[in-house]
């Protein structure tokens, strides 16, 4: 399988935080979700990959060709930050003019159309002129995303694109992701970070779980769902099953936890109920496990 991005020994060091050392591959032609707690390093990783901040060490290869964010590579990457992406006093027209100047493939008409589709009123479609300061956080994110989708890119790198969107718009965003991937015919890739895992589950093919600047688990969603199970039952069977559980949470009557799928039959033979985890459950349990391993 081809990789859109390959990182080897990638690190980014701040005084109070260190990202990495990370080794990973982002599969080409799929949508990859970065999942982690606040401060896990998702934004740092995204910014490092897109050349927004300089990496401290390591090597990143883009599309199997370049090892640096050259002008040509940046043309192929559609990057969008979570907040304050454009200067606050810019309007949709300012964004269009600037992006037209900065990116060869930016299409103003497409931008206006996507703005309309996303329900953002802009002067491009004859509506009242508004700058970003006058827009809600949700509308700001919509206009950021519209500007990125209005370009012809091979890789979208989006930092929490769904965070300020309403559930309906998040669902439409997932559809747009799928459409982008499908149109690419295996050549277009998406990387996005998210906290709204249940809403964005439909959009994720591959997942990277991060905790404290490290990757704690990664893989295709379907593979991870085959690798882990959720064990859940009455508290009566807890003592006999707890040795199989990687994470545990219980109250007076019931318990649940994450276990390896290879222990499914054993858990069931001990009377415990098992189920295939959703991505939401998987995320919570894997991040819990990472915290336990870090000794928190």
């Amino acid at each position, binding site marked *: 399988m081809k990789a859109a991005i390959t990182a080897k020994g990638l690190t980014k060091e701040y005084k109070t935080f260190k990202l990495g050392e990370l080794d990973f591959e982002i599969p080409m032609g799929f949508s990859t979700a970065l999942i982690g707690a606040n401060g896990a390093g998702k934004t740092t990783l995204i910014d490092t990959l897109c050349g927004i901040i300089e990496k401290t060490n390591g090597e990143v290869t883009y599309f199997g060709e370049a090892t640096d964010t050259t002008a040509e590579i940046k043309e192929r990457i559609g990057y969008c930050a979570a907040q304050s992406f454009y200067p606050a006093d810019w309007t949709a027209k*300012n964004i269009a*003019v*600037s992006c037209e100047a900065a*990116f060869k493939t930016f299409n103003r008409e497409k931008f206006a159309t996507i703005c309309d589709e996303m329900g953002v009123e802009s002067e491009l479609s004859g509506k009242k002129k508004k700058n970003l300061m006058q827009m809600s956080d949700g509308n700001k994110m919509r206009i950021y995303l519209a500007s990125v989708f209005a370009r012809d890119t091979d890789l979208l790198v989006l930092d929490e694109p769904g965070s300020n969107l309403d559930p309906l718009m998040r669902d439409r965003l997932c559809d747009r992701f799928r459409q982008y991937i499908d149109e690419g015919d295996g050549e277009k890739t998406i990387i996005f970070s998210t906290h709204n895992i249940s809403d964005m589950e439909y959009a994720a093919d591959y997942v990277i779980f991060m905790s404290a600047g490290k990757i704690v688990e990664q893989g295709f969603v379907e593979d991870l769902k085959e690798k882990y199970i959720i064990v859940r039952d009455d508290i009566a069977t807890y003592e006999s099953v707890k040795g199989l559980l990687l994470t545990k949470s219980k109250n007076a009557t019931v318990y649940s936890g994450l276990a390896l799928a290879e222990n499914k039959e054993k858990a069931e033979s001990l009377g415990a109920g098992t189920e295939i985890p959703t991505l939401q459950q998987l995320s919570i349990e894997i991040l819990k496990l990472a915290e336990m391993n870090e000794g928190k």
Partner: protein
Amino acid sequence: MKIYQSLKPQGLAAIMLFVFVAMFVIILLSGDTTLLSPQVIILVAELALIMYGLVFGRAHLSYCAPEIHGYKYFRSIPNFECHFRKQCIASDIVCYGIGYAITIINLIFMPEISFTPVIGIIYLFITALGTLITAFVNTSHRVYIYTMMFSMIPLTCGTVIFVLADDIPKNFIPCSVQLIILGCVTIFAIISLTLFYKRLGNNLRTSYGKG
């Protein structure tokens, strides 16, 4: 706009220097030879060099500053260094240009410039301070701050000269008139030039690199 777009930062700085020289020549042609003392020439040269240096310094400082809104967008575009530097230089040229123009207007009203080197040092200090203070605020606020700072210096100097002067020259404009003119110039400059700058700034910021 196309001329601006095709220029590199060095070219822009050269235009800035040319403007300074042109302003100086205009003063010369106006026949007011009192403004052509060696001290004034040194002052103008000093100012030009300071501005040239600071424009580049601030330009680099700005695009490295995550505090600036839009920083991530600028970093994400191809050849962002060039684009961002151009944007900063353009806005700084407008800022310094406004301040410098106001200063020249104000200097014309001064009867004597007996301590020009001191003014030069004050300028150096104020400009450096202004650069540091305003490096992280948005461009509109920077114009306000610069305009105020540049206007206050001649105002203070004029007042000091008037207070310290033993003999008032015959052609001396009374201090009260001078203060009114300075005040009017300052207020007018702040209001009108800021409005102009906001318009120009938006055009510059959104059109850099085009073509």
